[in-house]
């Protein structure tokens, strides 16, 4: 999905103590990087972190029939509320807060619209397919009380895809940090959470993919702490008659957004960074003032290919 390179920079004396562990999860190429520990210990801890990522994928992926999200979706329209645990409830609360904080643009029920959009075939939605799905979209329709969630209409769906990967990056980083890792990072397909700087104190150079040229980097963001997440119109899309239709759908209209080619956000946690990139893509022209008001740093490429940025260092103050 995203090709994010970690530029090595000048070869540090500690190069021998910098270990990378690649794996695939959540449909992306992922990497855990641990430095400052012996190889055996780093390997052990990396496995724990990878296990945590897989646990979250299994629990929240709508593509796994045993996941919590699938159970909730399966009960849609049945009149049955599903009881969820503390972790799930926390994430649903976060999504609910975000819905309010984004003036309704961030909506985890917008996943139902995927039925109208087939990115593989490259065809626009047939007839009134979108109109037929709109009644199933809208967080305000969801019944969320106590620890029980109910989707009142059959066909309604919850989708944690807008922040699941980012949450997993933060959780994996916490697992490593709790076990004594002070230098390293977790990179899940371009959503990155830094645990601590390189052993020599220097920041990691995180590459952001260029939205149009696959083999080029748009920029390198130096981070010694915090997180970087990116959303773009190049992850899943098709082009028709010169127009690009990407996978980020506006929950109010059912149609893809066009204002931004790519938005990257720097924030203390990947969960926040990822949620804000999604909101920014949806906000269109209002994205940059919104991100500034949220006090985060960003790198954004607009529809004409122009780069806008706000100091990433500000995000961590």
């Amino acid at each position, binding site marked *: 999905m995203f090709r994010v390179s970690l530029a090595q920079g000048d070869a540090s004396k500690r190069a021998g103590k910098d270990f990378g562990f690649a794996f695939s999860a959540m449909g992306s190429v992922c990497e855990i990087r641990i430095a400052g520990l012996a190889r055996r210990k780093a390997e052990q801890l990396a496995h724990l972190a990878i296990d945590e990522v897989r646990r979250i994928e299994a629990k929240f992926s709508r593509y796994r029939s045993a996941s919590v999200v699938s159970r909730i979706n399966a009960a849609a329209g049945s009149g049955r509320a599903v009881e969820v645990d503390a972790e799930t409830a926390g994430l649903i609360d976060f999504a609910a807060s975000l819905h309010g904080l984004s003036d309704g643009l961030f909506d985890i029920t917008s996943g139902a619209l995927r039925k109208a959009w087939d990115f593989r075939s490259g065809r626009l939605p047939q007839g009134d397919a979108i109109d037929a799905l709109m009644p199933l979209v809208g967080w305000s329709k969801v019944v969320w009380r106590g620890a029980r969630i109910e989707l009142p209409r059959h066909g309604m769906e919850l989708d944690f895809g807008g922040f699941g990967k980012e949450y997993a990056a933060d959780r994996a980083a916490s697992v490593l940090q709790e076990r004594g890792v002070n230098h390293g990072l977790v990179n899940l397909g371009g959503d990155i959470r830094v645990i601590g700087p390189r052993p020599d104190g220097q920041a990691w150079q995180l590459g952001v993919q260029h939205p149009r040229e696959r083999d080029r980097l748009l920029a390198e963001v130096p981070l*010694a702490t*915090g997180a970087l997440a990116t959303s773009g119109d190049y992850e899943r899309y098709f082009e028709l008659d010169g127009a690009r239709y990407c996978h980020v759908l506006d929950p109010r209209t059912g149609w893809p957004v066009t204002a931004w080619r790519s938005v990257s956000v720097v924030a*203390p*946690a990947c969960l926040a960074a990822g949620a804000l990139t999604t909101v920014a893509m949806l906000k269109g022209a209002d994205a940059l003032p919104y991100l500034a008001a949220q006090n985060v740093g960003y790198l954004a490429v607009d529809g004409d290919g122009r780069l806008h940025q706000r100091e990433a*260092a500000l995000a*961590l*103050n």
Partner: protein
Amino acid sequence: MKKLMPLWAACVVALAGCSSMTAPEAWEKSSLAKPEMTMGSDALGERFRQHIYTSKENASGGYGVGGGGCGCN
């Protein structure tokens, strides 16, 4: 001498009135960790300077203990 006191008081008041003087959360402290923001940066150079000023002026102190003396003139 006495004229300096109101100046210092004014600085303290101005500092207090500065925008967003809220105690930083743990995740907001990256600026504070920079060497130039800590109180002890360049220990060796600072020690030289204090040694020179203490031997050419009468005032001393405020920074730490344990320096020991010298017959500097």
